[in-house]
């Protein structure tokens, strides 16, 4: 006997519009050796200042929007650029790098055309106040309903409005703020079958890595970036914690984004 699951009207619409969404599985074996991330998952990228969080996010977005022949997943992406670390020129270089790596024979002009075309699938929201952000989140849901190619929503960064929303009259703990945001992401990712990826500076809500959390208010993948830069050499490391499973990878950052190094 199957169990009957109740759902609201909005959820029904969400489910129907999401039936044929592209997935991000096998996005990047360096980043997700488990061939993920499957739909409905939440990815957190955290680390100190200057460890490449924004670059990681750009890498994931680039691999999502490129066509499959050029190393991507042919998906659309919604991006909340809240901390102004996104630079379109750098993003283009990242797209070029991935496209050329996966399709070295394609001629330069064609590659450029393809890259510019797939930019049409990246929707960027710039918000500069909690009110604007709230409005943008509403619009995001409308967009998700109308565009069934969207497979990824990214946020750079969570906590961008924390110090404006946490006031003397209405104090909020960082951990509480974080959990509420995550619960919201979780609901959207479940209803619409999309992947959520966001960056978190490690000074924001540092306790979330230590306090016990439920599945609903913690990410499925927590990628921690560590800098191993010295005066002589630069190097970074990414430690991924995927609900108990751990992966490590080394990388460097240059003008073309992330360059994974073999261990």
């Amino acid at each position: 006997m199957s169990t009957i699951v109740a759902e609201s009207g909005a959820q029904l619409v969400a489910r129907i519009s999401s039936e044929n969404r592209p997935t991000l599985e096998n996005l990047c074996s360096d980043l997700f050796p488990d061939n993920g991330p499957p739909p409905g998952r939440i990815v957190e990228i955290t680390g100190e200042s200057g460890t490449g969080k924004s670059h990681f996010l750009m890498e994931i977005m680039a691999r999502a929007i490129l066509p499959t022949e050029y190393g991507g997943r042919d998906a659309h992406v919604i991006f909340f650029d809240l901390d102004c670390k996104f630079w379109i020129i750098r993003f283009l270089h990242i797209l070029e790098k991935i496209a050329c790596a996966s399709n070295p024979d394609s001629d330069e002009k064609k590659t450029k055309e393809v890259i510019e075309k797939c930019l049409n699938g990246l929707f960027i929201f710039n918000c500069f106040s909690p009110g604007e952000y709230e409005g943008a989140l509403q619009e995001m849901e409308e967009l998700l309903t109308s565009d069934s190619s969207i497979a990824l929503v990214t946020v750079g960064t969570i906590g961008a409005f924390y110090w404006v929303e946490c006031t003397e009259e209405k104090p909020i703990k960082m951990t509480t703020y974080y959990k509420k945001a995550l619960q919201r992401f979780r609901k959207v990712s479940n209803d619409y079958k999309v992947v959520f990826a966001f960056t978190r500076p490690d000074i924001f809500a540092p306790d979330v890595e230590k306090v016990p959390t439920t599945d609903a208010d913690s990410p499925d993948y927590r990628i921690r970036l560590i800098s191993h830069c010295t005066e002589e050499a630069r190097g970074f490391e990414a430690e991924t914690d995927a609900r108990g499973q751990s992966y490590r990878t080394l990388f460097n950052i240059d003008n073309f984004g992330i360059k994974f190094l073999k261990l």
Partner: protein
Amino acid sequence: MLTKKSVLKNREVSYVSAYKLYQQTIQRPQIIPTGVKRIDELLDGGLQIGRIVEICGQPTSAKSQLSLSIAVNVASRKNIETIYVDTKHDLSGVVIRNMLRSRRYTENVIAETLQKIRVARIYSVEKLIELFENLDKRMTDKDNSLVIIIDSLPSLMYLHHGEAKFEGLNLLAESVLRMRKLVSRHQVAILVVNIITCGRKWTPVEKKKPEEMRLQKPSLGKHWQTVPCVRLLSKWIIDSHAVSFYNFANQMITGFEERKKLSYTSSLRMADKSK
């Protein structure tokens, strides 16, 4: 009360496709050279539209002088506006005039350049926020690119240091949001001057390790650390009279000439040796 209805009614933000953003971006030059060659190398070309750059360093480590030189160099270029936010009455017309005279500019050109540097004397964060809001309302696509130099942000923020309430942090966060709005929505680049502070309390040498005592970090707090895209650190090189600038992100270092030659009538000159 932020209800869904009220939010939808007041909504003024929408999304833009990356393609459209790309088209908008390539129409105008995105890099504004500072005119100080080695600093441009450190910054991969110069100040970038859409980004916030920070210069931090101990007091009297040539930060203000560098910002002034940059203001003068940028003002000498066509089609770029400059606003110098002076929070400590540091900008002196006489110093700039002497700087330009040493470059053998004519008096007419000197006057023109001086006229292009707009100076806002601001003594509170609230006034700074007001300035950003006014600029945001007034600027349009047809305006020239704008470089805003803030000398300095801690000079305003320390008025709220250690307050029991969150007011200081709220104000800093508000000004950050306004800065981001300006650089994102308009052709603006912002340069912020910050200071380095030592760790708070010194204890006798026996009790604490020397490294712990001298924790030097940029001031303005942890939230601010995540804001600038690039941070340059200026430092006196020990036992010499040279200043070095260091880019935290790409870890490049460049050096400048001996202090006694860092004459106040000329802009910063390059050292012959640099790392």
